[in-house]
C-alpha cells in the first residue's frame, strides 16, 4: 500500500465557539516520526486526539492508512485497533493488573487466545523492562513504570501508528528518561509515531520532522536541524526562545 500512514486535509474543530483547529494539513509517511510542539492551548493534543476520533472533527478529512474517518462506526473501530495511544495521565485500568491491562484488548477485540495474549504481553513488558511488575496493580507502580506499562498495553494491539499525548508531562523529572528511552527504542524499530511533547531533546534525536502549532494552526513544519537552527517564523522563534531558555 502506498497510502500515507496519516493524511489530514483542511481539518477544523470547534469547542463551542472556540476554534481549536484551523485548516490543518499534515501528511505522515509510514515509519515517519513526527514531534508536535507548541504553547499550551495551541491545539496539538486536539489534533492527535482527532486521529483516533477521541475528538470528532467538524470539517476536513482524516485518512488513516487509506481508511477515512467518518461516521461509519466500523471505520472508527478499524482505525482505533491500528492506532495505539499513550496518554499524559497513563489511564491504566486500576482494577486490573498490569498484565491484564495488556491482554484486555487483544483478547476481547482481536479475539486472541488467552495464552497467546499473555505471551505477547509478557514479551512487550520485557521490552519496556517491567516484566517483573506484571502481576501488580497500576496503583502499586511508580509513574514511570505506569507510563511504560501503558506503552506496552498499546503495543499489545500491534498498532502500525502510535500517538503520544504529552507522555512525560505528568512524570517526576527522574522518571522522564526511562519513558523517553522506551520511546526512542520504539522509534528505532521503525514505528510510525506522532508525539506531542515539550521534550526538545527527544525531538532533536528522534524526529524526522517537527511540527510547530499555535492558536489552532500549523505554523511551521521542518526537519529538526533546520527547525532548531533556523526557524522560519517569528512565532516559532519566540516559542523556542521561551522553551530552550532554561
Amino acid at each position, binding site marked *: 500500500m502506498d497510502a500515507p500512514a496519516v493524511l489530514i486535509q483542511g481539518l477544523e474543530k470547534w469547542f463551542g465557539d472556540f476554534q481549536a483547529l484551523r485548516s490543518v494539513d499534515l501528511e505522515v509517511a509510514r515509519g515517519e516520526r513526527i514531534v508536535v510542539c507548541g504553547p499550551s492551548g495551541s491545539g496539538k493534543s486536539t489534533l492527535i486526539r482527532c486521529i483516533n476520533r477521541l475528538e470528532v472533527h467538524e470539517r476536513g478529512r482524516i485518512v488513516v492508512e487509506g481508511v477515512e474517518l467518518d461516521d461509519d462506526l466500523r471505520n472508527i473501530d478499524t482505525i482505533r485497533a491500528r492506532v495505539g495511544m499513550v496518554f499524559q495521565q497513563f489511564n491504566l485500568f486500576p482494577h486490573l493488573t498490569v498484565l491484564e491491562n495488556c491482554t484486555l484488548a487483544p483478547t*476481547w477485540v482481536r479475539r486472541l487466545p488467552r495464552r497467546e495474549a499473555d505471551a505477547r504481553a509478557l514479551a512487550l513488558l520485557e521490552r519496556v523492562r517491567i516484566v517483573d511488575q506484571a502481576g501488580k496493580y497500576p496503583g502499586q507502580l511508580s509513574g514511570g513504570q505506569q507510563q511504560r506499562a501503558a506503552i506496552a498495553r498499546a503495543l499489545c494491539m500491534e498498532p502500525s501508528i502510535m500517538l503520544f499525548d504529552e507522555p512525560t508531562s505528568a512524570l517526576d523529572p527522574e522518571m522522564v528518561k526511562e519513558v523517553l528511552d522506551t520511546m526512542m527504542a520504539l522509534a528505532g524499530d521503525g514505528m510510525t509515531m506522532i508525539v506531542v511533547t515539550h521534550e526538545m531533546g527527544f525531538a532533536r534525536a528522534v524526529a524526522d520532522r517537527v511540527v510547530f502549532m499555535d492558536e489552532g494552526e500549523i505554523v511551521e513544519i521542518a526537519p529538526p536541524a533546520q527547525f532548531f537552527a533556523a526557524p522560519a517564523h517569528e512565532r516559532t522563534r519566540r516559542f523556542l526562545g521561551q522553551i530552550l531558555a532554561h
Partner: protein
Amino acid sequence: MKPSSPPAARSGQAPRPGSSARPPHAGVPARIRAAFFASPRDTVLTLALVAAIAAMLPGLLDWLVFDAVWGAQPASACEAVRGEGACWAVVREKFRVMMFATYPFDEQWRPGLVILLLVALPVLSAWPRMWNAALPAVWVVGILLAYWLMGGGLGLVPVPASQWGGLPVTLILTIFGIGFAFPLALLLALGRRSGLPVVRALSITWIEVLRGVPLITVLFMASVMFALFMPAGLSVDQLLRAQVAIIVFVAAYLAEVIRGGLQAVPRGQYEAAKALGLPYWRMMGLVVLPQALRIAIPPIVNSFIALFKDTSLVVVIAIFDFAYAVKKSVETDVEWKKYFVEALLFSMLVYWIGCYAMSRYSRWLEQRSAGAR
C-alpha cells in the same frame, strides 16, 4: 520505589543504628485513658454510661434469657412469668404459621425447600467466581424451581398463589426483586447517560416518575390498574404484580446509585478503552462498570437492604408476607395474643440476620477490592 534500584536493595535494607524496628506503641492503660478518660467531661460521661448499662442490663438479660419461657410450653407457663420473662414459647407454638402462613400444612415441606433455595441462590451469586455467563442460567433454573415447588403441578399438588405466605413470599419478593432490579438499573443508569435521545428520555422518565412516588402507591397501582392494561381474559396473579411493582420501583432508585458510581470513573478511562478499540458494551462491561460498581458498593447494598425490609409493605394489597404472617399468627389466637411483642422481636431478628449478612458481604467486597486502587 525507584524502578532502577535492584530488588536486593529494597528488601535487604539494614535497620539504621539507633532506630527501632517498630513505631513507638502506646500501652493498653494509656489507650484506655485516651479513649474514655481523656478529659473531666469524658470521665463523667463514661461513668454515667457504665452506671446506666449496669442498672439496665441485668433486668434485660433476665427478661430476654434467664426468666424467659423457652421450648414447647403452654400459654399458661408464660402467664406465670408474665412481666418478668419473655415468652419465647410463642415462637415455637406459632412457628409454622409465621413461616408459611396459609400454605396447606401437609405441603409445607415445599416452601421450606424454597427458603433453602432462595438463600442458596444469592449466596451462590455473591461468590465472585460465579460472575460469568452461567449465572443468569442458574437464576432461571432457580426461579422455575421455586415457582414449581410453591405452585405445584408436574406431580405436586397445585397450590394457588393466593395461599402462599410467610417467609418464602418475603424471600421471593426480595431475591427476585434484587435479581431483576439490578440488571434493569444498570440499563437505566447507562440509558440516562446515553447519547441516544430516545433512550435517554425514556430512562429519565422512568427514574424520575417512580422515584417521585411512594412504593405503597406503586403497589396499589400494580394491584388495581394492571388489569386495565392487560388483554381481557389474561389475569396476572397478585404476587406477580407486587413483584413487578417492586422491581420497577427499586430499579429507579438503584439506577441513580449506579449513575453516581459511573460519574466517579475518570474520563481518561473511557478514552483509554476507546483508544484500544473496545466497542461500547465491552468498554462498559470490562472497564467502566467494574470500577463504577466498586465505588457504589455501599449505596447499592443499602438499596438491597431497604428493598428487603420494604417488601413488608405488600400487606396493603393483601399479600401474606413474613412480617404480616407473624403479626396474624398471634393476633388471631386469644390465648397467645398477649405475646405479640415476643413474636415481633422474633420477626425483627429474622430481618436483622438477612440485613446484617448483606452488610458484612458489602464490607468483604470492599476490602477484597481495596488492593486494586
